[in-house]
């Protein structure tokens, strides 16, 4: 087998896919240029006659207190007297309502609408810069970096204001070394509701009462953490909100007349306590403005806006505090805070029209600067805005010159100008690089076609190693040429285009090369072969039912409804394909005893049909299809829900971790179910291994892993669950012990997993070796084959206990050999060669499954058990239909060919279990808890480890199915039943299970290549389809909510799948090397012959 050749071919295909993803994502995910200019006091913003430096004028408010309550949703802050039975999150903050109704001039409550993405870091950036975030920032939540754009904090500090900060440490990351005094607090983890808030409260009132500050920013995190840990409607939330109510009350008592108090939420949260998206519940936060001196000119009017965009806070605060509006703010001042006309006696207070004019001028200046830097603002709307601006400016200046107050129409006009600027910016920062997207799509499409071609021509291509080298070398040189050309023409190199050129050249050359290969086989081979080759890309081979199902799946990615219902859609398709298997077999007359063929001329069949065998095999097949259907149906109970579907859909109760369950009885039931499934998972894997005598194999690392590490792992996991399930607060005396166990147990599991994998890699052979001094008659035969079978009982060696096997070794050895050892005749017999490839792979998947289960909520153990059953059912269905085909003499040449149906079933099941393990293709639904498994105190440094843990959690089903993919190739060989062996014996053939692969390395290699190419094709087309959907529907209303996250998840899923597919293949290669080595020791001639 050309091991390196196969691996490098697959690596090359994966690399092409990666280039395609990189190109497409680079063009699709939006980037906004940051304008690195700052506003200064010298900016001429007021009309020419009044050259006044407003920084030195007395501002309306000397000081401000900003209380940011993370995730303070708008409805938390409202108080509804009519609500007789408030839930835990309702009517807990009456302070706002009381103030608004009793002192309407002093305080007011607004609906403060954030922009997506509603993640804390983006919101803090938006709250200080007044600009609009872009999607690409979403990923940076773990590692914030300092804000470089002009912002309110910088402006305040520049004017010598003392900004004191306390609370969530994200601010310190965004504004390092900026604050006059900074008291960042570190929350241990998401369950820690009080550390940060208590830290703030220790200092807040003392600071406000003192005089060493101008602006105090306090960021409370408890409400957000409470939502994440316990959902919205939970007693803890009531307590937290009541505490915040008290905080606001005492803050109102502490502030003085020259101080503005702002209480706000940075974003909202869903009812499940998550945020990040753009549903109303996530974007709508509360904003409360208060001052002991009258803040508003009059009581709230009817036409006053109730909804305030988040960008509007920055210009408002800036003008109220007398600092320039940050350069790139696109917000508009909050008019009710300004008196209608500037009164001369109240110095410093700007009038409405004046404030608006400053605002308009600043926004216009930003637009000009931005459009000179980047060409992404559309020309026509820019010129329209410019016309509007000149109109405004002419009218305003005229009214100032005449000494008249500007007309109310002008005020409205300025407001509408600011609104349309904001809307233009919003629309523009959803702009795409179409050329890059097109290049990415082309590369992806060609890569998919290449996979299809590889799968059809694997037998030819596996031999031609020189071509790949030539191809890659040529493509790389073309890429280099493009880079040099760019350097000459543009003066700089854009890596994306070099990669695009490389990938496209490589793909086109591969097609040409395949065409050549096809032509050469067509002339060289016999005619039937040539005909088969000739049709490898015809429409006919595309329109077989499994590929039609795949096509439907790909088409479903173009509709948001189907993406939202993806879990059900995939289950539906998998079930349809599962039903297709028996129907198709029946159509071919293979399923049940073909008694109706009696009147027909019997087909020439090399194998005598035994009705009993067919009946048995058919029953196995139907039973496995039934098992498949059952596990598919049950897996529907583990789905999570989209935010939109809250009304009609309830998330699975199994998704709640045990520690958060409040009902004791339910907790017990869940715990028992989880433990039972875990032990069943371990038991089933071990049972299979025991049945194939792997646990008895002598000495090897794999056997040790199977015998000891796997059960130990699941014991540790069970213990870990038990420890995690203890309710917080109980067992106070052993709390320390519990805390320690929560650290130690997962880490033990991680290290056991590492040891197990290492052992498996070092010594993957699961062969039972037995040496004995031979009473062997005569000298050894001159030539040995890899498998020797003499008697009809040969295959029993694989299955019967060793004592019986020993008795029967007299007349045969399975996969063994004899060797002269130490000069005296010794016989070394090897058992278990029949499952030599599949056993390590299965063990690998079993270990991996337990490890991944650790990262999930306990209830998911049931889902993992279903996953195991479903993989078993698919494998058995595949094996049975292959056997039935064989029984009827319709085996494909070589018998190693894996048809499309099982491959598509296998790969779609990965997506199905992605949903059945409680995941969704949305960012808020990522199970962040996984990052803290084994690290309950959070991660001290770096994001690599938590990111890895979360990735492993999110794509666990992709990982399991990808790593186990080669099993599809092995299973029909492993599951040879006795009658089949007998029939082969009668024909004088060998019954050798997987050793057949050894004997036929060429075919083995090509089958492995074909299988992995098909798997990559199935995943690749899904990736391509979701990229296409994102490109075509890029202006769709839910693009950022549905299609873009779907694309990101699909791309990440593809990356993970391809990596683990390569790992699985590599493991098979490793076993092959080991087997080769063992054979060499047994039978030197054989290795020479190869």
């Amino acid at each position: 087998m050309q091991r390196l050749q196969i691996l490098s071919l697959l690596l090359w295909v994966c690399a092409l896919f990666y280039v395609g993803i990189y190109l497409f994502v680079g063009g699709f995910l939006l980037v906004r240029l940051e304008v690195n200019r700052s506003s200064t006091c010298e900016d001429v913003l007021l009309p020419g006659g009044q050259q006044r430096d407003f920084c030195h004028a007395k501002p309306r408010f000397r000081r401000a207190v900003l209380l940011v309550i993370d995730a303070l949703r708008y409805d938390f802050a409202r108080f509804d007297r009519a609500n007789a039975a408030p839930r835990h999150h309702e009517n807990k903050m009456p302070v706002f309502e009381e103030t608004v109704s009793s002192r309407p001039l002093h305080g007011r409550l607004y609906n403060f609408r954030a922009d997506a993405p509603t993640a804390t870091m983006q919101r803090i950036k938006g709250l200080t810069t007044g600009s609009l975030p872009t999607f690409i920032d979403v990923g940076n939540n773990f590692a914030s970096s300092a804000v470089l754009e002009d912002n309110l904090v910088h402006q305040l500090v520049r004017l010598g204001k003392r900004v004191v900060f306390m609370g969530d440490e994200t601010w310190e990351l965004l504004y390092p070394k900026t604050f006059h005094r900074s008291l960042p607090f570190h929350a241990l983890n998401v369950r820690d509701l009080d550390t940060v808030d208590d830290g703030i409260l220790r200092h807040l009132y003392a600071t406000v009462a003192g005089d060493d500050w101008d602006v105090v920013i306090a960021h409370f995190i408890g409400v957000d953490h409470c939502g994440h840990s316990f959902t919205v409607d939970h007693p803890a939330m009531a307590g937290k909100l009541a505490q915040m109510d008290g905080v606001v009350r005492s803050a109102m008592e502490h502030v003085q007349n020259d101080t503005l108090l702002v209480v706000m939420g940075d974003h909202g949260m869903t009812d499940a306590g998550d945020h990040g998206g753009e549903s109303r519940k996530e974007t709508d936060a509360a904003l409360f403005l208060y001052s002991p001196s009258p803040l508003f000119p009059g009581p709230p009017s009817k036409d006053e806006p109730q909804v305030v965009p988040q960008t509007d806070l920055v210009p408002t605060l800036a003008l109220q505090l007398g600092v320039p509006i940050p350069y790139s703010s696109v917000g508009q001042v909050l008019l009710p805070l300004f008196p209608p006309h500037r009164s001369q006696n109240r110095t410093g207070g700007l009038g409405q029209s004046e404030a608006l004019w400053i605002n308009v001028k600043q926004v216009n200046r930003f637009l000009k600067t931005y459009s000179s830097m980047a060409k992404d603002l559309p020309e026509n709307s820019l010129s329209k805005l410019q016309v509007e601006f000149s109109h405004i400016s002419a009218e305003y200046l005229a009214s100032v010159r005449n000494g008249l107050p500007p007309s109310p129409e002008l005020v409205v006009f300025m407001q509408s100008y600011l609104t349309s600027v904001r809307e233009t910016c919003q629309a523009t920062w959803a702009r795409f690089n179409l050329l890059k997207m097109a290049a990415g799509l082309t590369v992806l499409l060609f890569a998919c076609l290449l996979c299809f071609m590889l799968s059809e021509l694997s037998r030819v291509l596996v031999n031609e190693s020189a071509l790949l080298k030539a191809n890659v070398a040529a493509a790389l040189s073309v890429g280099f040429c493009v880079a040099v050309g760019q350097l000459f023409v543009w003066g700089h190199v854009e890596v994306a285009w070099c990669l695009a050129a490389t990938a496209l050249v490589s793909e086109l050359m591969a097609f040409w090369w395949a065409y050549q290969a096809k032509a050469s086989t067509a002339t060289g081979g016999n005619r039937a072969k040539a005909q088969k080759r000739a049709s490898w890309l015809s429409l006919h081979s595309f329109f077989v039912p499994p590929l039609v199902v795949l096509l439907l799946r790909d088409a479903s990615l173009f509709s948001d409804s189907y993406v939202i219902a993806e879990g059900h859609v995939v289950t539906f398709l998998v079930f349809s394909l599962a039903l297709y298997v028996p129907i198709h077999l029946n159509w071919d007359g293979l399923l049940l005893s073909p008694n109706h063929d009696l009147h027909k001329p019997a087909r020439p069949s090399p194998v005598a049909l035994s009705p009993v065998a067919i009946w048995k095999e058919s029953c196995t097949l139907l039973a496995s299809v039934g098992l498949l259907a059952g596990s598919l149906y049950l897996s529907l109970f583990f789905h999570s829900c989209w935010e939109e579907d809250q009304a009609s859909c309830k998330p699975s109760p199994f998704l709640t971790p045990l520690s958060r369950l409040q009902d004791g009885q339910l907790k017990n039931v869940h715990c028992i179910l989880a433990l039972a499934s875990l032990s069943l998972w371990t038991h089933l894997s071990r049972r299979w291994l025991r049945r194939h005598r792997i646990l008895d194999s002598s000495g090897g690392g794999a056997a040790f892993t199977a015998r000891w590490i796997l059960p130990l792992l699941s014991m540790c996991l069970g213990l870990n669950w038990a420890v995690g399930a203890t309710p917080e607060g109980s067992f106070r005396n052993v709390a320390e012990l519990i805390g320690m166990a929560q650290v130690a147990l997962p880490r033990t599991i991680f290290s056991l997993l590492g040891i197990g994998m290492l052992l498996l890699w070092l010594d993957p052979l699961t062969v039972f070796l037995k040496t004995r001094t031979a009473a062997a008659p005569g000298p050894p035969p001159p030539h040995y084959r890899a498998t020797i079978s003499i008697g009809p009982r040969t295959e029993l060696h694989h299955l019967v206990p060793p004592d019986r096997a020993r008795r029967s070794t007299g007349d045969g050895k399975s996969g063994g050999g004899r060797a002269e050892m130490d000069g005296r005749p010794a016989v070394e017999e090897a058992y278990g060669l029949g499952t030599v490839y599949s056993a390590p792979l299965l063990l690998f998947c079993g270990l991996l499954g337990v490890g991944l289960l650790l990262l999930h909520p306990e209830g998911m153990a049931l889902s993992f058990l279903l996953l195991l059953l479903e993989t078993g059912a698919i494998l058995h269905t595949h094996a049975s239909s292959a056997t039935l085909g064989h029984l009827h003499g319709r085996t494909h040449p070589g018998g190693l060919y894996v048809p499309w149906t099982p491959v598509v079933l296998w790969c779609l099941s990965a997506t199905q279990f992605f949903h059945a393990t409680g995941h969704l293709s949305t960012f808020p639904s990522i199970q962040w808890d996984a990052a803290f498994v084994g690290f309950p105190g959070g991660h001290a440094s770096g994001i690599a480890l938590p990111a890895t843990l979360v990735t492993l959690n999110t794509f666990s089903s992709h990982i399991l199915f990808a790593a186990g993919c080669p099993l599809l190739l092995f299973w029909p060989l492993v599951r040879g039943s006795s009658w089949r062996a007998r029939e082969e014996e009668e024909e004088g053939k060998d019954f050798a299970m997987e050793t057949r692969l050894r004997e036929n390395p060429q075919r083995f290699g090509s089958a492995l290549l074909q299988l992995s190419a098909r798997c990559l094709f199935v995943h690749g087309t899904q990736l391509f389809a979701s990229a296409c959907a994102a490109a075509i529907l890029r202006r769709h209303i839910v693009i950022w909510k549905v299609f873009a996250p779907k694309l990101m998840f699909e791309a990440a899923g593809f990356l993970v799948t391809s990596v683990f597919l390569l790992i699985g293949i590599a493991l098979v290669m490793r076993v092959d090397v080991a087997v080769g080595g063992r054979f060499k020791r047994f039978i030197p001639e054989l290795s020479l012959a190869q």
Partner: protein
Amino acid sequence: MWDQELRTMASSHAILASSVIMSTVVPAVLVRGFSVYETHLLWLYCLAGAVAAVNISAFWLLGIASPTADPNPLSRLLRSCLYLFLSCLFYHTVVVLYGAPLIESAAETFSLAVLLTSLTTLRCLCVLGPDVQAWIRVFTRHGAKTVWDSSLRITVASTVVGAWMGAFFIPLNWDRPWQAWPVSCSLGSAIGFVSGLVAAPAWIYYHRKQLTYKCK
């Protein structure tokens, strides 16, 4: 020779198709407030009943049903009823496995199963008699021995595929009345059934050179 049989079949298919249409039109005229969407179950049972009645009478009059070894008509009838009931249960199970709600709208699901039974299993019973072996045999590549077998194959397949494709519309957020469970599926199966009735004679006529049927 089987030219004539083809003609008989085409006309019986035309009667069946018209019965499908009549079962929609007649109650709409007679019953106040009848609508395919709102009083869906009523329409569904009308359709199922009409198709069953026409099917049975047509095949009885034509004498198509294959003679079997079981001469006792009562036992045949009993077995037929049993098979019909089992088929309903079978369809119900399959539909639930496809993701239909288990308990909430069990009546709707079962009605769909009844409809599918009357459109497919009943025809099997009429053409082949209560003989599961024969049913399985018909659905193999070389299993169709008469014109009727072929038409059965086509209508059953198109009905089931129609119902299957009807399910595609359920998750879409179009908010149409026919997206409610099980309206789209039963409409799909009815449309599939009618198109199967139309397609079967055409297909057989088109492939008449390749087909070698026995005549009855």
